[in-house]
């Protein structure tokens, strides 16, 4: 029998099977991730700082990938950030048109390596714009990256 070239519409006629793998995940944020997410609750963006080479990682890592030593020091970065790149999405994950396009930015922080991808808006938003995070109201923060609503032009 030839392999079906089209998506199956009647599985019974082909003696094929349907099944799904029924599992879900519960992840730990990890040592550095835990610090990072708790920082959001306080309205802070934390970097981990290597005491050997001075490199500061956003998001924080518990080790320096260059020196390969453990990092125990955490420092606040920002809130001032700079837009390094922008993208405008017109469709969602499944390819359906969004009600209105959504702008994403990759933002970086002075003195830190790495950065964050997040929603962004504001007058004159472009590459090089100075932006800052707008956090949710304190009582509504849950310790995820969505505690930041978006980055807005300062």
């Amino acid at each position, binding site marked *: 029998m030839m392999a079906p070239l089209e998506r199956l519409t009647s599985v019974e006629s082909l003696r094929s099977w349907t099944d799904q793998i029924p*599992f879900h*995940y519960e992840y730990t944020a990890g*040592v550095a991730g835990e610090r990072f997410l708790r920082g959001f609750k306080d309205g802070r963006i934390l970097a981990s700082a290597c005491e050997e080479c001075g490199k500061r990682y956003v998001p924080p890592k518990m080790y320096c990938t260059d020196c390969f030593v453990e990092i125990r020091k955490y420092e606040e970065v920002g809130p001032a950030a700079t837009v390094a790149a922008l993208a405008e999405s017109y469709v969602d994950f499944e390819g359906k048109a969004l009600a209105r396009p959504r702008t994403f930015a990759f933002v970086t922080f002075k003195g830190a390596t790495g950065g964050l991808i997040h929603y962004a808006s504001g007058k004159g938003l472009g590459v090089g714009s100075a932006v800052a995070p707008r956090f949710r109201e304190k009582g509504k923060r849950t310790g995820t990256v969505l505690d930041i609503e978006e980055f807005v032009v300062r």
Partner: protein
Amino acid sequence: MKRVAVIGAGMTKFRRRMLETGREMSFEASRMAMDSAGMEIKDVESVVLGTAPDAFDGVHMKGEYLMDGAGGTNRPYSRVYVGGGTGVFVPVAGWWHVASGQFDTCLVVGEEKMSPLHPHPQYAFWSIFDHTTERPLGVTLLWIFSLEMRRYMHVHKVREEDIALVSVKNKGNALDHPCAQLPARITVDDVMKSEPICLPVKRLDVSPTSDGAAAVMLASEDVARKYTDDPVWIDGVGWNVDTQYWTNRDLYYPRYVEEAARMAYKMAKIDNPKKQIDFAEVYDPFDYKELHHMEGVLLADKGEAPKLTREGVTQRDGDLPINPSGGLLGVGNPIAAAGVMKVCELYWQLKGEAGKRQVKKEVDRGLAQAWGDLLQVGTVITMKR
């Protein structure tokens, strides 16, 4: 071909659930192995990492994800994978990196984080069974292990109580392992009365699921001698994969393990393994598997392993200590990390650094073995002082 030495080892605690991410555990084990060797990251020329299905950690392309925690960034780095046999296959892969002359050093890391997967890590195996003849029945891994255990018991007329002795020994040995997850002083009666899972397999016949990482540092002879006066040598490696049709072989004996062992013995010029191997870390995710594998690697005749166990030969103070670490039954079973843990144990035992776990007799050569896939792969390494 260059001689390859192990010059450092390290491992995290094995636990049901760790706060550390897989990357962070990989870092901790890698850093310990480097510290124990006296090396820094600049001294690491290549990295091999082993980790079992992506479905455990819940991170697709897990090899790439774990890389920077294993010191792989901007280095020749690769992930190897042969199911449950991965843990002993990673140092084999590390060995060929160095033996080939391509690299003078290779960091070898095994990682597994099984706790993210719910309802149970076993679900990762949902789709490994044949979808026409097996999956409609709701087959679990326990079913085939139970069939295999029963077949082994039937062919050699082995009593369940003799198999339980392995669990008693290994969980007891693990009391002396600082990283152990399930060390315990238990009795045969405890095993026999433990919860039936899929008889003859009962709760205390089985190793736990775990999070953990372990690592060893390999070096060529020239480089090894700069770091230590008494390196431990990898003198034999072997691996072998049988057909994926587990139905098409007699389950009482792991012939693929024998083939892997024979490959390693040929390389190490071992013609009488019972005399030339002083102790072994064979793969023990289930208690009967230790017996199965002792026979597979030719350290016992077919059907003889239960007798040796009953007579105390395999205890730490016996003539042929088996799993002095406490094995997977006692230390824990983060799949790929568990196999590397066994190689770490060979290193510590051969260096005389195993502390309270140090076997009583003088040891010059040890063997580690892992097993996996659908009852089909055997991986073997022998190490010598």
